[in-house]
């Protein structure tokens, strides 16, 4: 099956810093989503981005489908950005495959 690798596994930032999270996948995909999991466990949708670039406030994402990677940019980080960020892909059918996540800690 398709493999999803996220890097880095852990990231500690000072408030106000910028960061880039990476997601590599092993095959072509029909769907790619980025999620933020809050401390209570809920997965919050950040981007639905099988290809191209999108921006939402301080967050933006780029997926280069031909090179099988996606990047999530966080600018001017805030303590509320802390949590786990997941990339998930769907190749064929109905099963989203998740990466192991990036744990982000933003210190004030």
């Amino acid at each position, binding site marked *: 099956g398709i493999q999803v690798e996220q890097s880095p596994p852990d990231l500690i930032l000072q408030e106000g810093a910028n960061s880039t999270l990476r997601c590599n996948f092993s095959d072509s995909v*029909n*769907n790619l*989503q980025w*999620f933020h999991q809050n401390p*209570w*466990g*809920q*997965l919050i*949708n950040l981007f*639905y981005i099988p290809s191209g670039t999108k921006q939402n406030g301080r967050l933006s994402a780029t997926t280069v489908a031909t090179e099988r990677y996606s990047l999530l940019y966080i600018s001017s980080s805030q303590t509320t950005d802390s949590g786990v960020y*997941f990339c*998930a892909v*769907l190749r*064929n*059918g*109905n*099963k*989203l*495959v*998740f*990466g*192991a*996540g990036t744990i982000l800690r933003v210190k004030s």
Partner: protein
Amino acid sequence: DAGVTQSPTHLIKTRGQQVTLRCSPKSGHDTVSWYQQALGQGPQFIFQYYEEEERQRGNFPDRFSGHQFPNYSSELNVNALLLGDSALYLCASSLVQGSNTGELFFGEGSRLTVL
């Protein structure tokens, strides 16, 4: 616009018991998927329901079963609980897009502890 809702939020069971978890999809969605998330890991696909049928299944034993009702809500049943079934169970809803699944939206999850 109501999002995906799950119940109960927390529950504790003992080994060998059975559990039923419930999910109501986001308004307008017709497909429900269930995922299991063990501590420190990414969610793993259990199965998906569409038109009251199991559409696809992940690598989970038959102890895990489900149902979808005419109003698109769904239940996940786990029989003969094992300690290893302790996890966060996440429900996601979406709209079918041809043969594939569209963007998924997740509920807050049901945290199951098996003692």
